[in-house]
Each structure stands twice: as structure tokens, then as C-alpha cells.
């Protein structure tokens, strides 16, 4: 019933779909639940938890894409067996991390499926961990935002920020001290709010939340490496300046973000900074500067994301720079020799 085979030199198993269906339809609920719980705990051990301090889980983690395939399969099974299985909060956390991974790779529909399932699980548990709920709302908002649903995304980012504020208020009421994680999660929520308000054209609100977020991060900067999170703030601030036409101020913050970002640990974020900085230079008519920045953005995105719409966007911008400079040979390369097709 289970077949063993080799994939890239390592042993793997497969099971026929009819056998899978038969197991789900014929075995007792208690048997299914025990094995389901075991599988979830095991996946949690093997699939790393997304850190609130670092770039989303990347392909560099061994077997990441395979663990994700299992998480997607579990979501489908859980949906089919929702009358039979009890879905623990641990599953919501796994879905949340799986969605983070999918989002980073542009797989928004699959990612949305997981965040919606996570949200449903959280809302069905009366005593659900409030931090987990905040995280799920926040990430659901990220996916909505990237899917173009900005207003709905703003609603979920606001719910997430409110969730964090209430958490800190409860700690205070109970005479407990908030630790770094509690405050950093609030800073991340403010960072997200600033980003979405900027996208909505609410620049004053965006500036306010950028300042609040940066203030919290600066307070904890000496106790931990917050370079990735500070980079997010600097980039957000730069974007607001750029949108308002304050290009020199924006350039200072773009440079700060680039200087602080770790070339190895946060390639995706670094690439985004180069891309946004390059787009601003292009809008200013400084095409040669824009080209240099776009070349770096494209290179980083190709190395870290591969065949991804963000990579294509940087390539498109690069082609626009070549076109504006009448660099025909380079334009041909950019237009027709996308690495995806080479």
C-alpha cells in the first residue's frame, strides 16, 4: 500500500490516492485523530517556525518545499474531514508558517487558502492564543495586499495592531512587564500599518506609524540583532518620502536600508530596496542611476526567488532603463533572454 522510491538519492514513500481515501473513509475517528495529531507535531518539529525578527522562511532551509506540500495536503484532508477531526491551534500555526513561505514565493492563492484555514481554526477556539490570532490576521492581510485588495488588507492589519495593543494592555493590567517579543510584534504591526497606509495614499498616517515602529525597534536595538526589522522601517520611511516627492530624504533612507541589510540573510528584502530605490530614480529621470540599482535588484531576485513575478518586474524595469538610454543590445537581452526561458 505504501511504495518506496528514490528521489535525488534519498528514500521517499508514496501512497496511492485511492488508498488514502479508503483510510479516511473507513477508519475510526479516534484512530484518525491520534495519527493526525502525531503528524502535526512531527511536521512542527521538522518545519521551522517563522521568526518575527527575520526574512520569511526560504528555500535555503532543507526540504522546505516538501514540508509545505505536506501542509497543503493536510489542509485539504482537514477540510474534507472537518466533521471528524478536531483541529488544534498548532495546525493554525503550521498553516500560518506555510502561508509565509508560499507568499514569499508568489503563490498567493495557496497562501490565502492556508491563512483562511488558520483564521477559521483560531476563531473556533474560544481560548485561542491572542498572539497567534494577531499573527494570522497580519499575514492574511499581507496576502490580501499583494493580491491587490488593499482596503480589506488594511482592515486586517488594523485588527492585528489592535490585538497587539490589547495584549500589552492586559500585561499592564496584570502588573506584568512586556518583553522584547511583545513589543517587537507591536512594532511589526505598526510597520505593516504604515506600509498599507502609504499604499492608500494616507501619508501622514503612514509617517506616524513608521515613527512609532522605528521608536520601538530602536529601544531594543542594543539587546538583539534587529537589522532586518530596522531595514523594513527605513525602507517604509523612504517610500513615503518618495511618494511625496521628497527624493533626497528618500534616498538617505534607501541608502540606510541598503547599508544595514545583510546580503546573505535578507536577499529578498535587499532586492526590494534596490528595486524601489531604482524605481524612484527612474521616476526622477536619473536613468543611469536607476539602471545600476535595477541590475542589482534583478540579480538578487533571480538568485533568491528565481521564476517569480517580482523578478519579472525588476527585469521589466531594467528593460525600460535600457530603452530610455537607447542601449539596444542590452534591451534585446532583457526582452528576450529572461533566465526563465534560457
Amino acid at each position, binding site marked *: 500500500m505504501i511504495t518506496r522510491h528514490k528521489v535525488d538519492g534519498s528514500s521517499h514513500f*508514496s501512497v496511492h490516492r485511492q488508498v488514502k481515501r479508503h483510510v479516511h473513509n473507513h477508519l475510526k475517528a479516534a484512530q484518525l485523530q491520534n495519527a493526525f495529531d502525531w503528524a502535526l507535531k512531527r511536521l512542527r518539529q521538522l518545519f521551522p517556525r517563522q521568526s518575527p525578527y527575520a526574512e520569511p522562511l526560504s528555500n535555503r532551509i532543507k526540504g522546505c518545499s516538501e514540508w509545505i506540500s505536506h501542509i497543503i495536503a493536510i489542509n485539504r484532508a482537514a477540510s474534507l474531514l472537518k466533521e471528524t477531526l478536531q483541529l488544534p491551534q498548532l495546525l493554525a500555526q503550521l498553516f500560518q508558517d506555510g502561508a509565509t513561505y508560499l507568499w514569499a514565493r508568489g503563490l498567493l492563492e495557496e497562501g490565502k487558502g492556508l491563512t483562511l484555514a488558520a483564521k477559521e481554526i483560531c476563531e473556533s477556539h474560544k481560548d485561542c492564543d491572542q498572539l497567534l490570532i494577531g499573527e494570522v490576521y497580519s499575514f492574511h492581510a499581507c496576502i490580501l495586499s499583494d493580491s491587490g485588495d488593499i482596503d480589506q488588507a488594511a482592515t486586517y492589519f488594523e485588527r492585528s495592531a489592535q490585538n497587539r495593543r490589547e495584549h500589552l494592555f492586559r500585561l499592564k493590567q496584570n502588573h506584568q512587564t512586556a518583553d522584547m517579543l511583545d513589543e517587537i510584534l507591536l512594532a511589526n504591526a505598526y510597520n505593516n500599518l504604515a506600509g498599507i497606509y502609504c499604499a492608500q495614499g494616507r501619508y501622514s498616517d503612514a509617517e506616524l506609524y513608521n515613527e512609532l515602529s522605528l521608536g520601538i525597534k530602536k529601544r531594543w536595538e542594543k539587546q538583539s540583532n534587529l537589522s532586518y526589522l530596522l531595514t523594513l522601517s527605513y525602507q517604509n520611511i523612504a517610500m513615503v518620502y518618495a511618494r511625496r516627492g521628497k527624493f533626497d530624504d528618500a534616498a538617505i533612507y534607501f541608502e540606510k536600508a541598503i547599508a544595514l541589510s545583510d546580503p546573505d540573510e535578507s536577499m529578498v528584502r535587499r532586492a526590494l530596496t534596490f528595486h524601489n530605490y531604482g524605481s524612484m530614480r527612474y521616476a526622477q529621470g536619473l536613468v543611469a542611476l536607476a539602471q545600476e540599482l535595477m541590475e542589482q535588484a534583478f540579480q538578487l531576485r533571480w538568485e533568491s526567488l528565481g521564476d517569480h513575478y517580482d523578478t519579472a518586474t525588476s527585469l521589466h524595469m531594467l528593460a525600460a532603463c535600457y530603452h530610455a538610454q537607447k542601449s539596444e543590445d542590452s534591451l534585446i537581452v532583457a526582452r528576450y533572454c529572461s533566465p526563465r526561458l534560457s
Partner: protein
Amino acid sequence: MSKIGSVQPVGASCPLGGALELTRALDDDWLLVYDNAENAASLADLWPPSSRGSILITSQDSSWLYQEHISFHILLESFDQQDSKAMLRSILSKQGQELSEEVATALVVETGGLPLAIRHIASYIRATESDPMEFLQTYHEDRSSSSTVDEWDENIPPWYRHTLATFLNFAFRQLNDQSIFLLIIVSFLDPDCIQEEFFTHSLGPSELQPFRNKAR
């Protein structure tokens, strides 16, 4: 087919959009293969934006036959007796088991010529080192005492689900608790590619507990 684009294996690690966009970008005809597709709904978002090429779908779900956008279909028949016996013998011969004509015919009748059922039954006999004649006897007894009504996917042909479900019910009853536990875990995962390390890497005592034999 003059050109096949080079793409990464399509899965969670690679945006499916990339493969679909590739079909739009190619100037030549293309062929896209969806192997072992579940049903039409599962591929709804994965239909290429270009009409220059062809799509080949293999599936066990007969509802595909009624989809408007399917131009041609081939319904695969069961194996005839001769092919069924050849497949049965090829699996059992790996362990040096010979089958008499009489036993081979009886086994093939049980499978209805269904390749999946032949493979399961032959693999089962091989794995348990059963005598094929004894297997048949136990199987007949088990089947006649079983009142299970199968709840298979409604789009699977009735003869198919009956044959296979009967065998799977029989096989499940031969498994111990630990094997059933393992099978259920596997049934929740991506069925095509389950890493061995899922069951081997750094397992603690609590993870191993369900797999230990219980004192009866």
C-alpha cells in the same frame, strides 16, 4: 512538437504561473501533461492562457469525460486475462513464487483485471510471503463475512471501487495497530513524495511510543 521548454518541476516550490506563462511565451506548439489529476475543479486555476498547444490529462476520475473543454478521451479498459496474469506473475516471480494456471486465473478473477488491484494483491502476497492459494481462501472467507458498504468517490466506476475496496478492507484487517497508525499518518501527507526522514530523523521516545508493540 518542436520544442519543449525547460521548467523546474512544478510544485509548491515553483510558481505554477511560471509554467502557464511559459505556454503563452512559446511560439511553437506545446504539450502540457497533468498526470493523475484529481478532478476538474482542482485544475480550474491551472488552465493555460494560450490555445496553441495541447493538454494531456490522466485521471482516475471519470467526471472528466463530461467536461465541455475535453475534446478527446480514452477510457482505459481493464486488462484481459492474459495481461492480468502476466502482470501478476511478473510481480510474484521477483520472489521466486510460481503460480499455477488455476490459482492465477482465480486471482485475476478477484481483481477484475484492474491493474491497481493486481499490483496491491500481488504485492501483498509477496510482502507477507503468503501461499497464493491460502491467500485466496482467506480472502474469500473475509469477503463473505464483510458487510462493508464502500464510500468511494462517486466518480470512480462502481466495478473499480468495489474490487479495490474489497481488497483494501481485507488488507487493513491484516495490519497491526502500529501499521495502521503509520498508514493513517501517510494518508494525511502529500501522497506523492513523503521523505523517509519524516519517520526517522531525531525521533524522541514520545514520538516512537505509538509504534511500539503493546502488551496484549
